[in-house]
Every structure is written in C-alpha cells, then in structure tokens.
C-alpha cells in the first residue's frame, strides 16, 4: 500500500467561545509535526474534545486559525474537508445497515471512487487492521465483537488515505486488557501509515503510552504544557501539570519504555517428551535462569518448569510444568509488564509475537533497572527522576 504520510497540523491563537461564557478553548497555539501522535489530555471542561473537533469543523472556532499542511481549514467547504480527515469515535458509530466492507468504503464512495478501486482498498485496509476480508467483509457490525468493531472504525477512518486522523477516546469503551491490545495494534499500524493524529483521552496513562507529544489542557481551554511524555514526566511545567500526571510520576515513566527496549533473556523452550538431562544442560548455559518454558507445537507458552524439578533422567511430561506464565508483547509498556509480572509467582514474563509464540523472557529485575536510569529531557540533558518543579526552577 502506498499511503501518503501525515501533514503538519497547526493551531494559531485558536479560541472557541460560546456566548459570553468562559471560553471553551482560549488562545491555543501548538504545532503537531507531520506523522506524529499528539494526545490532547485534561480534566473535563478543559476543551480537549472541542479542540479536536475544530480541526474538521464539527465545531467552528471563534478566533484564530487552524492549518493542515499549511492550508487553512476554512478554505474548503466543511463536508469536503471532513472527507480528507479520518475520524474515529469512542462508540465507533459503524453504520448498522451496511456490511463491514461497505462501512469501510463510505468515504471513498462519497468521493466517487470507481467500484474496483474501492474494493481493492477495502480488502487492503481490512487486512491491515487484522480482519480477514473474505470472512468479515460481508458481515454486519452487530455480528462483530467490540474490539473487531473498533478495528473496522480505524480502517474506515483510513479509507481515503487522509493525512490527518482525529481520534476521540477511541479505546475508551473496551475493557482494560483488550484496550492494551488495541493500543499496541494501533501503534504498530501507525509505524506503517505515519499519519498525523490528534488523539483525545482523559486517561494520563493512555496519553503517555500513545503520544509522541502530549498537550495538557486545563479548565477554560488553556494549554498547560505541550511536550514529549518524557519531558512532561521529568519536568512538569506547573503545579497543575504535576498534580494532573499524578504523584507516581516515577512509576509512570515506566510507561515510556517498551518491552522491546529491554535486552530479553533467552527462552529455554521445552516440549513434552524431551530428555530432562538435556534441558538441564541448556538451562545451565543461560545465566541466572532457573526456569525452562514448556511450549506447545506452535511454540506458544504453557507453563514454567523449575530447575529443581528436573532431577534424574527420562522424558518430560506436562505435569512438571506450573501453568500460568504471564505473557507480554514487545509493544507492552514496561509499567504494564511490571504489573503483570508482579502478580505471578515466578516473576518472569514471556514475550510473545503477534501469533503468541514465545520469543524471549523479561524479568522484574530488568524492569527495575530501567526505573533507576536517568531520563533524557526535551533539552537533551539528563535529569534524575523525582526532580520537582521547585528543584528545576
């Protein structure tokens, strides 16, 4: 697929005021570099959704201007502008009377594309979001699970290859485990499509995980801080930001790292029927590892085998293994990985690929070591975690 990448989105002194009330958005200026995810986060009444909806003019600004790739959003009729901007909302809003393929084809159809081109594009996008076009294309939205619907929502937003996508709490309506998976999938997708994304959430953890840059808004639509997640966590610009990101800033910093950033420990993968002595030998070659991992024929984890249980000879049977090895993905944040590991007895996690196959191990110690490392801040200097605003100023 030859998708075009993102375009620069710029807010220049943008305001929105309803009547004579307190402004919803107040003199907002910020520039989102092309291909980055900018997360708008803030308490309710901070104007984050209003700010997002002014980009595709579902809400018209009362002052200032917004440009996409240098072009003023007011220079086009609103309907045409919106067809060039992807839009994903929390409730997904799939059209129940259209099949999945037809839902994805909505904007191309509005743009008058020819049928073969629409079909090709639809198949391509469904495959991209991990839904087999042959299986899902002809189904209706009410035959899909919540997570599948959300993926269709993303495919639909990408259909006409827009340079900019707006996402309004897109993963807010799914349970925490599925949300984590959808977030990871979306980040992998973004690596490929490189759109400029304006993403609204009220959840600081989601903001830290998803954002290249975070814009923290406070009541009355005032921009409190606009910076990278690392910089915001290291040096909050105000007491408001510090309170908003929370007292556990150090722990949250773990959300900036991914499992893939760690040096993974080699897996000693074992199948039922292997010789005990041989497995012992392989375990000895890996430093500080006391557990082998029993896997199935697809190399997917089943459970841990303690070195202490590997005495003697003979083949390994399934009873030796303690089931329930926590699994994490390369995209999982270190924070989520840590909490998954702390809940298990062995304190090791299995890193699995997108087909659930074990590719390495992470340990609580390795994550703890990351927590103690200093953070690079926006100006490139290293700063110890826990430096407060007072200390920085």
């Amino acid at each position, binding site marked *: 697929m030859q998708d075009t990448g993102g375009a620069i989105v710029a807010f220049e002194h943008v305001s929105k005021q309803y009547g004579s009330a307190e402004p919803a958005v107040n003199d907002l200026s910020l520039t989102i570099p092309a291909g980055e995810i900018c997360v708008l986060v803030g308490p309710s009444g901070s104007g984050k959704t209003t700010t997002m909806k002014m980009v*595709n003019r*579902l809400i018209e600004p009362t002052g200032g201007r917004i440009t996409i790739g240098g072009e003023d959003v007011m220079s086009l009729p609103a*309907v*045409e*502008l*919106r*067809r060039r901007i992807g*839009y994903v*909302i*929390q*409730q*997904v*809003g*799939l*059209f*129940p*009377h*259209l*099949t999945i393929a037809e839902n994805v084809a*909505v*904007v191309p159809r*509005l743009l008058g594309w020819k049928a073969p081109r629409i079909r090709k594009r639809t198949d391509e996008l469904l495959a991209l979001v991990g839904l087999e076009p042959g299986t899902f294309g002809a*189904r*209706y*939205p*009410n*035959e*899909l*699970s919540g997570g599948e619907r959300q993926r269709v929502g993303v495919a*639909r937003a990408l259909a006409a290859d827009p340079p900019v996508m*707006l996402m309004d709490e897109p993963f807010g309506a799914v349970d925490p485990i599925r949300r984590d998976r959808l977030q990871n999938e979306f980040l992998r997708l973004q690596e490929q499509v490189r759109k400029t994304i304006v993403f609204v959430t009220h959840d600081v953890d989601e903001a830290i995980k998803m954002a290249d840059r975070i814009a923290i808004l406070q009541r009355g639509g005032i921009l409190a801080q606009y910076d990278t997640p690392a910089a915001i966590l290291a040096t909050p610009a105000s007491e408001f930001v510090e309170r908003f990101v929370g007292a556990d800033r150090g722990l949250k910093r773990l959300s900036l790292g991914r499992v893939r950033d760690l040096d993974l420990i080699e897996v000693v993968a074992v199948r039922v029927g292997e010789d005990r002595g041989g497995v012992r030998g392989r375990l000895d070659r890996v430093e500080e590892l006391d557990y082998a991992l029993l896997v199935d024929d697809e190399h997917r984890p089943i459970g841990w085998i303690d070195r202490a249980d590997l005495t003697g000879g003979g083949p390994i049977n399934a009873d030796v293994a303690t089931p329930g090895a926590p699994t994490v993905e390369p995209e999982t944040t270190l924070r989520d990985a840590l909490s998954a590991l702390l809940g298990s007895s062995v304190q090791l996690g299995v890193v699995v690929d997108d087909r659930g196959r074990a590719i390495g191990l992470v340990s609580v110690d390795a994550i703890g070591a990351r927590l103690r490392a200093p953070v690079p801040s926006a100006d490139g200097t290293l700063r110890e975690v826990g430096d407060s605003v007072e200390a920085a100023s």
Partner: protein
Amino acid sequence: MNENEPFIRFDWIANNVDEIGQRLSEHVLMVVASVLIGFVVSFGLALVARRFPRSYGSILAVTGTIYAIPSLALFVLLIPLTGLSVTTGVVALVLYTLLILFRNIVTALEGVPPDVIEAANGMGYGPAQRFWRVELPIALPIVVAGLRIATVTTIGLVTITTFIGLGGLGYLIINSGTRRFFPTSIYVGVLLCVLLAVLADIGLLWLQRRLTPWAQARQG
C-alpha cells in the same frame, strides 16, 4: 332465516364469485391508495417535525384528534366537500392512518443512534446524504412496523365506507349480510377481510426482512 336453510349457502357463493371478486378488489384498492397517500403525507409531516421540532406536539395533537372522530361523523363532515365519492372514503381512511404513521416515522428517525449520526457528520456526509443514506435506512424497520399496523387497521376500516355506498368487503357484510339477514354473505366478507389482513401483514413483514437483512443478522 329459514329453518331449512343450510349454515353456509355454497351455491350463493358459486353464483356470486364475480360480485365477491369485485368487492375484494375494491377493498384492496382502497387500502393500498389510503395507506400510500397516508404514508406520503405522514412522511412529509415527519420531515416538518424534524426541521421544526416545536411543531411535533401540534401535529401529534391534530392527528390524534382526527383519530378520535367517529368514522360516521367524519363522513358527514367530508360529504359537503367531496360528496358520496371514493374520494370521501379515501380521505377519511388517509386521515385515520396519519396518527399511526406520523408517530412511527418520527420515533424511528429519533431512534437512530447519536454515535452513528456523529460518525456520519465527521466523515463528510451532507445533511441530505446523511438523511437518505444513513438515517432513513436505519429507521426502516420501525417505519415498516408502523406501515403494518396502519395497513391492518385500514383493512378493517374500509368496511365502514359502506355507509357512503362503497365498502369493498364491507358491502357483503353490512348491506347484503346484516340488512337482508343473510349469514353466508357475512361469513364470506369477514373471512376475506381477515385473510387479507393476515396476508398483508405477512407480506409487509417479508418486505421488511428483504429490505433490512442487517436487522436479522445476529452474533454467532
């Protein structure tokens, strides 16, 4: 009734097939005309109520009041305007469908989920495109449900137009049946009326399923 007279005079039915057929087709025509015109008028009223939400209450009050007028009284009110004609019959029947159809169409359109409307706006549907391509198709099952009620009601109501010389199957029931005390004619009229109502209901249900396959699809 003669003591020797059989319960049903099949010979009468056989001799009057043409007459019965003609009354039946008259009945069907009046139902189809009334429901169609009633639907078009109600749809127009529903569009008005959508555009000017404050008019909804007044339209509902007026159509509700009309619905409450006894049919004979309604004929008396209409005869000075349209005489003893088919027009009078159809106008009366149309007026009776308005309450059911108007309220159903409005309810159906209001039932379109707000997130669907927001998604449609965000993707760049114009207001008219959004109405015809998104809102109306989603509202269709409830709209057709209203059509079914209106059709079945109208099939019953046509019989009373006998009093202005029409009546379709009502003619068999009231004129040749009740007035001349000839039960066979009543049975034939009632039976055909019921059959017609059942068939129309099934037919519309089938139509609805054909038009909205998505409403039948369920997980699993």
